[in-house]
């Protein structure tokens, strides 16, 4: 297995392929024991234009795994941190006080408080990445719309798609440098 050092995992969603079936959201809940009434992963539907000239975009959404994560900057205890080996943003539940500064800091609304009291969000299934497996959402997607990959590896499926396809990112003006790509 390739070493995990200096990797920078990100996510891409093919909005042309995504049908909004929510299988990813359900797989995520099962895999990560997300409590009832809470969501780490959800489905967005964006309709734009003026009738009859409308366009619709559907995509599976979650934490954007920002390069400049405001949640990590805002955390007073170091609970929100960047995992060295994968470059992903994670929460150490043993350090989290539940002060909710990270929730206020996240422009994407990706975080919530678990009933136990600590803050939670998409981990990009880091436990699976460490084993060289795919994330639960990527694995279950029936249209192969979700791609998770190393952005530091130009041969990864995600890097190749970013090079080849038109893509967008959400709220880039927030200055977070999100690593979450929407292929259009």
């Amino acid at each position, binding site marked *: 297995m390739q070493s995990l050092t200096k990797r920078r995992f990100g996510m891409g969603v093919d909005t042309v392929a995504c049908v909004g079936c929510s299988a990813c*959201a359900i797989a995520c809940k099962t895999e990560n024991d997300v409590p009832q009434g809470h969501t780490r992963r959800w489905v967005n*539907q964006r309709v*734009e234009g*003026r009738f009859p000239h409308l366009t619709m975009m559907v995509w599976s959404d979650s934490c954007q795994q920002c390069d400049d994560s405001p949640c990590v900057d805002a955390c007073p205890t170091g609970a929100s941190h960047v995992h060295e080996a994968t470059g992903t943003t994670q929460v150490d539940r*043993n350090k989290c006080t539940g002060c909710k500064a990270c929730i206020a800091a996240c*422009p994407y609304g990706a975080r*919530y*408080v678990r009933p136990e009291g600590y803050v939670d969000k998409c981990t990009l299934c880091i436990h699976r990445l460490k084993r060289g497996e795919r994330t639960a959402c990527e694995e279950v997607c029936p249209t192969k719309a979700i791609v998770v990959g190393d952005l530091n590896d130009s041969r990864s499926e995600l890097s190749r798609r970013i090079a080849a396809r038109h893509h*967008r990112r959400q709220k880039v003006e927030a200055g977070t440098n999100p690593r979450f790509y929407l292929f259009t």
Partner: protein
Amino acid sequence: MQNTTFTELTTTRMNPHVDPGLHIWGWEVPVYLFLGGLAAGLLILSSYAVLSRKKRDLPTSANWAPLLVVPALLIGLTALFLDLEYKLHVYRFYLTFQPTAPMSWGSWILGIVFVTSGLSTVYALYQLPWFANLGLAKMRLLQALRGFAGRHERGLATSNLVLGISLGIYTGILLSAFSARPLWNSSVLGMIFLASGLSSGAALAALMAARLNRDEASPEHEFLVRFDLTCIVVEAGLIGLWIVGLLTGTEAGREAAALILGGPYTAAFWSLVVAVGLVVPGTLEVMALRSRWNSHLVAPLLVLVGGVALRFILVNAGQVSAIAQTVGHG
């Protein structure tokens, strides 16, 4: 209108306190921010009395104001503690220092403020005639602390002044550091909260002075009125700059400003913060200085109400403000 396009976003996300609008902080955080600002104001005021060698002219500010700093901070920190979702992990604030996190700065500033203001409290307690008769006053540790505080009175006042200013500004920076909340994301906010904290501290000292100094023509009355009036004018100017900054900034800033300029928080902000907290007490204080009508109670009480309202309205409105959902190229 022909070219107008509309965007509608539907989401299956539904997290408590995040959807449909962010509401993670209730009454606890505004109460803490108000009491933190008040404590900062009292610290600065009492330090000024010592450093300007006016302890005799300003007895309330010098001797009584320090006694309220620790109680105000303790109540404020209790409120903050109640807001924590994982209370057992509260000690985690003091196992690290995170330079990018205002809350981490605040934790350490508060830790140091407790030590220095605690020393001032002990010193001030011994100034009270009834305290000296208590058995507690004969405790060796307290006497040693009093002696230390007495020997280093000016040094202690200087550090309290610096820490008071830091604490007052920090209560605003805590909110302004969130770039995801455009209403808060202004560097002026720290100065607004410092001015408001100073004003609240002066108002509380004025209320105490009215009870303690029976002599209405005492120089402390006039000093506190002038001090408070200065704070009110500065705070009003800073609030104006803050709104101008939002309106001349990005689209997100303009949308945030709309919350208090026609939006749901307009009536509360302009009536409670601006009218009750600034305009009316400011006018009363100008009248008091011209000896037209002297009220030792109304103006300070209104200032305190305005200070509480400022924190509640800003904490609530700021959470609602957000960067619009955009899907940009790149």
